[in-house]
């Protein structure tokens, strides 16, 4: 049953990783605006003309933003 020590260590480590990710995302400002991203994620290639080069560029830009 010594495996419990290992399991505990792993589980706490995993929890700590997620905790660190949370702190990191708060620091980056992801919790500052809790509305706009929910709208933004629905936008993609909405340019009317089918200009493929422009459209892909646009989607690239958007992925950069989010």
């Amino acid at each position, binding site marked *: *049953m010594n495996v*419990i*020590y290992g399991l*505990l260590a792993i589980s*706490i480590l995993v*929890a700590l990783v997620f*905790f660190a990710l*949370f*702190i990191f995302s*708060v*620091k980056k*400002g992801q*919790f*500052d*605006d*809790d*509305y*706009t991203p929910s*709208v*933004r994620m*629905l*936008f993609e290639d*909405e*340019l*009317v*003309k089918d*200009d493929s080069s*422009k459209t892909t560029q*646009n989607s690239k*830009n*958007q992925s*950069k*933003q989010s």
Partner: protein
Amino acid sequence: MVKEKCYHCGDDCETTKIKQDKKLFCCRGCLTVYEIFSENDLTCYYDLEQSPGATPLDIDGKYDYLDQEDIVEKLIDFQEGSTEVVTLYIPHIHCSSCIWILENLHQLDPGVLNSQVDFPKKKVSVTYTTEGFSLKSLVELMAKIGYEPYISLDNYGATKDDLDRSLIYKIGVAGFAFGNVMFLSFPEYFEVSEYWLEQYKPLFRWLMFFFSLPVVFYAGRDYFKSAIQGIRSQILNIDIPIALGITVLFIRSSVDIFFDLGSGFFDSLTGLVFFLLLGKIVQQKTYKFMSFERDYKSYFPIAVTKINKKGREENVQVYDIERGDRLRIRNQELIPVDGILMSSSAEIDYSFVTGEANLVQKKSGDKVYAGGKHVGAAVEVVAEKSVEQSYLTQLWSNDVFQKGYDPKFQSLIDKISKKFTIAVLSIAFSGLLFWLFYDPSLALNVFTAVLIIACPCAIALATPFALGNLLRIFGKNGFYIKNTNVLEQMSDLDVLVFDKTGTLTSSQKNDITYSGLKLTEEDKMVLKNSFRNSNHPLSRELYSFLDSQNIYDAESFEEHLGEGIVSSYNNHTYKLGSAKFVSSDPQYSSLSTAVHISRDDSYLGKFEFETIYRDGVQDLFQSLDQHYKLIILSGDNEGERSILTKMLPKTTQLFFNQKPDSKMRMIKKIQAEDKKVAMIGDGLNDAGALKQADIGIAISENVNVFSPACDAIMDASQLSNLSKFVSISKQGISIIKLSFIFSFLYNAVGLYFALTGQLQPVIAAILMPLSSISIVIFTTLATNFISKPIQKSQRI
């Protein structure tokens, strides 16, 4: 007839109809925006939301000051090489189309590299290159598509506020620890004495101990601070029993595991802190796009046009204006300092300052006060004072604007916590005494158990959840309150003081009546067309008042600034304007605001403007009269006294000719009688009174833009609901009191276990979350229920 709406802005298309691509536009401006979007493949703007746009306003020369590098430098957030980042406040942001178009700015101009919208704050942060582009071109681009940013003196050199995210961190820490501790303490809840479990018990307990360390010393830190503050200022606030509870929980649990007496209460400890912090964040709900702390800086422009000694125009920063400077004020610009008018005449809109919508006429040599908005062709003003010394801005140096939070106000929870703390301590000590005689081995156990179980988690949660929820509901219905303290104070008012102009009356709508000779169809047509060509606010109103007519090109049209219009058609000459301008006969002059008309120098009649009171003012006063003393303070003359006395309850006191500081003094006088006063006002002239009053409510036609410093902002259309809002806030307080009773019952149950010495960690771990969650559910449901009246009236 179904009114045709503009495809771009959604306004009714009345006379001007422009058709393009089978779509209808109300004006050139809207069409231009549409054309810009369709040229750049951005017409999806109109698919996301119906008629999302705003008519672009004329901005010619308005942003010339953005050419000056030192001004730009103060406005931008960040600069590196040729890249600059700026955050602009755009009042028009209101829908997903806005987000979409603003984040696609780079399609319109390659100078824009990236743009990101923060919808709740109505702000967009734009990264752009300074090569062939600039802040000025960015602002002009945005203005051109109807998203004109609002730049005021407030932005100038404002320190970029650091967001306080510590509460989120603390919740994160507490939640993380709470989850893990629950998980680790789970096996102990069943008290099975299984071999393996026994063996790992110490490990699990020590892990819990370590998880609870950051909770006590970081997440719960504020409670200790506030408790110490409370003790120092000799106020037994609610944080004292909470801090006591946390301390006892931690020490008792640590001792338990040190000496292997038991598993400790780490689960309750972390849960308690987690729930309390949740309550804090609920209470903290703020309206990010509004500011309740505005002073004159938010109204004033950053720079104005100065005419230098060589007679050339240059832009000068408002703070740099000195006595004797000649300033050029263009149409719709704000006069930034007190000065003397040099041009022959000017019309100034003081609605910001006094709430009075009618234009004030000034002649050459007259004094003009800062804060007025100039309407009409550009005029010249010589500055008399600097910005800080002007009449209006001096109001802000008054003491009321320096004081911070009003310490006199004692919230319900403060009152209760005093008795509560005393009660808990006396129960704990009497329990201790009893057990010392009866069974000393259990005495400390009982003492600590009482303090643990009596920790007022549910009480501390009742207020934030009840009032936080009401705050949200009020906000949805157009009544934005600064914080929950204001809501609590609202339930305990004695006197309501109203401003008249702009608050009870609408500053935009007037009742227009025509008196005089009957107008022929031809007359009407000429009038309509003449008003169409004039930019004067009264002309605009009369234009929309008159029935639609054929449009023709005026044979001759002349606008005499500050006097009227001369227009001719079919060999008839019409004069429209002030009584003096239209006819030399003094019998036609009147006190009320009116536009007089003559044809070929014979007097025809006049259009009279009458202020109209907002809908429901009469009913509102009737219903408020039963519970409150009502007072009206008006900056105007007594002209409206007879109407007001007829309309309002007899007990209403009326005061006229009140200056800003006399309004403030009046409020102070009432407060000296130990009455709680609410001031309801709008313009900057009420700013002092709003601040002095226990709560100041600003009435605003457009909640996004203008309102003086206050505790709450109310959408003008909701004024008639004020009595409902007030009574709901009262009911909200009763709900809190009711939930206090519930939590006392929980405490009584817990105290039974504690005093009899049978408090097991598992009981605490069940009782504490159970009481907290049931209080949260109860307050949320109950506040939703009581606020039904306002929500219904909203829907109909």
